[in-house]
């Protein structure tokens, strides 16, 4: 991501020409592997989306029927709504949380290293394990309800993962708890790259801390923001494991995300064509989000 001095087109072409053949071979091999293992199956799932297939017999072409069915499928619409909540909630909370933590822990102080590692630690654990851990936390007689009881807040005790009103948020908190450390590390790296003298100069000119942060530091974090945005959108659209580990989309499909519903359709009920149609929707959303953002970003830069 580090900015290099721009080179003139001719010099660049020379540089391409100077790349040894061996390097091209090294690049070509993973590219071919990628084509075969990633793009070809992905293209297949586009064509599968236009069929009805149980995974055993022959796929029967049905045109756009799967997509028409999706539009009328209440579970799909719940999953879509949940995914929007998820992208905004998971993305918003983890970015804000990560940024606040990064700014707070960017200053030297006692035990800062310990705090940073502690916050990053959940990231080391797999999502499935975090899911199991949080299931214990949310258990009816688990630590969360226990603490609420001790504080005399019995009225707030819930069946966290079984009550449709709170279940999605309960899972979301668990996911944010894990993601926030990752975002924090990205921002910490970004903050290390900012120029401290600019901030000092602004302080001398009488800018308060709030102004210094938004006018001086934030613009320098633009590159990190792009990465954080892409990572967050992609992570939130492909979220699967933690929901599956904690609720399996239940109670009665109220915490279903597009990814979990896709999995359920594909592997529990054996509708591979229908599941591929859901996969196509996920793909379109991910690409749509990212293209829109990049286009906007490019415009503001010009």
């Amino acid at each position: 991501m580090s900015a290099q001095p721009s080179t003139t087109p001719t010099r660049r072409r020379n540089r391409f020409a100077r790349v040894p053949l061996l390097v091209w071979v090294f690049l070509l091999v993973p590219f071919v592997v990628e084509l075969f293992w990633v793009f070809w199956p992905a293209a297949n799932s586009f064509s599968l989306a236009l069929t009805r297939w149980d995974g055993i017999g022959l796929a029967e072409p049905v045109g756009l029927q799967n997509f028409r069915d999706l539009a009328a499928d209440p579970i799909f619409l719940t999953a879509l709504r949940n995914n929007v909540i998820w992208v905004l909630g998971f993305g918003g909370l983890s970015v804000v949380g990560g940024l606040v933590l990064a700014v707070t822990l960017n200053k030297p102080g006692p035990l800062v290293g310990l705090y940073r590692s502690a916050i990053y630690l959940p990231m080391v654990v797999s999502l499935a394990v975090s899911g199991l851990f949080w299931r214990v936390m949310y258990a009816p007689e688990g630590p969360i309800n226990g603490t609420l009881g001790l504080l005399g807040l019995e009225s707030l005790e819930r069946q966290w993962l079984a009550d449709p009103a709170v279940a999605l948020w309960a899972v979301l908190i668990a996911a944010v708890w894990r993601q926030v450390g990752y975002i924090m590390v990205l921002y910490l790296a970004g903050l290390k790259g900012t120029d401290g003298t600019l901030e000092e100069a602004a302080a001398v000119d009488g800018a308060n801390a709030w102004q210094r942060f938004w006018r001086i530091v934030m613009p320098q974090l633009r590159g990190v923001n792009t990465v954080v945005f892409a990572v967050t959108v992609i992570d939130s659209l492909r979220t699967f494991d933690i929901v599956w580990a904690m609720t399996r989309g239940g109670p009665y499909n109220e915490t279903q995300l597009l990814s979990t519903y896709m999995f359920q359709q594909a592997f529990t009920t054996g509708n591979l064509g229908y599941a591929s149609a859901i996969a196509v929707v996920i793909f379109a959303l991910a690409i749509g989000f990212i293209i829109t953002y990049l286009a906007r970003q490019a415009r503001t830069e010009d």
Partner: protein
Amino acid sequence: MSKRTITRRELLAGGMTLGAASLLAACVGTTPGGGGGGGASTGAITLQNSIQDADPKAALEALVKAFPDGEVTLNSVATEQFRAQLTNYLRSGDSPEVLSWYAGSVARSYAEEGLLLDVSSLWQGDGPCAGYSDALRALSSDASGKQIFVPTSYYWWGVFYKKSAFEKWGVEAPTSWDEFHALCENLSGQGIVPLTNGLSSTPWMASGWFDYLNLRVNGAQYHRELLAGEHAFNDPEVVAVMEEYKRLIPYFDKNAASYTAQDAATPVAQDKSAMYLSGTFVTTYFPEDQRDDIDFFSVPVINDSVPTAEEAPTDGFFASANSDNHEGALDLLAYLASTTSQQQFIEQSKSANLPTSPDVDTSSFSPLVQKGIELLNTTEEITQFFNRDSSDALQATADTALTKFLADPGSMKKTLDEWQKAAEGVFAS
């Protein structure tokens, strides 16, 4: 500047790749699951199975190790994963020879696709399955009447409780539906939760009560027809079943929606909760020193005019038509189905399974198992379980409808309408 746009484009490509990767998640599993892969020697036999619980797994391992006619590679895969991959196992070029799964409509649907080996030879003459009951033979046959499945054990469902706890509370197992309700009232009055269940990651447990109430109110014939799509889930008959279910709701543990099937046994073990309608696998959820204390009764009769019926899911093995060692597959199936193998497996697996072979000496089995055998021998009709009598796809609609009903019984009619609509979608595909 130009350098920066390239970075962005790379990022975009990266995004596409990751997006594609998420699509791929739907396509994994093209890799053949059969490990072992050593197809070189003709005698190689792979047994792909979904046994997870420790004791039954150890019992199967011991059994397979003692197989006299060659080396068997045993691959144990988690049930969920196994279910997802089963089609791939059967379609792959070097498919595992023998696979564990369920009898009935599930096995039949694979047979229809020509994926299963004809095992009729084991069911004829002095074959190991020749003496099995007609009910088992029917369950193991495909549409054309040839056998494609080898059942090796089955179990029953019932209302399980602890004898010592019932004694402590001064209550007895009920013999009529009114007595059952009176018992629940009595226990509630003593501050004990009458019924437990675990519906969080095992929402299919909600179908246990649905199946039994339907069997008791409308009978097994109606139940089978309903699961085959010949009746609607919003018919008055089903509404009557749900009205009975509704009467039970106050007796259920309020945490049932948060428990798994396994968690739900804990309050019974701790004498906080009294009864659990479940399959016999529930006995393995109890601490070892409590297992002799467990007893069960059958869900009492509600409607005298319908034949008695019990749920008895049947487990066993089938062989793949695509494997390269049909001979070995049949040998292994014959071995697993034999009387001595069944006896050894049931004793070592420590679960309350019943043998399918009538020649197994059951006199050494626990009193609980004796009682289970008695129950199934005297019942007029046998069903398996919701998913085994229909399909996993229909089970998913039942999970949604029943857990929703239990959380919000007031909207029962609306829930049933939604269930019927979802079921029509399953039958149409």
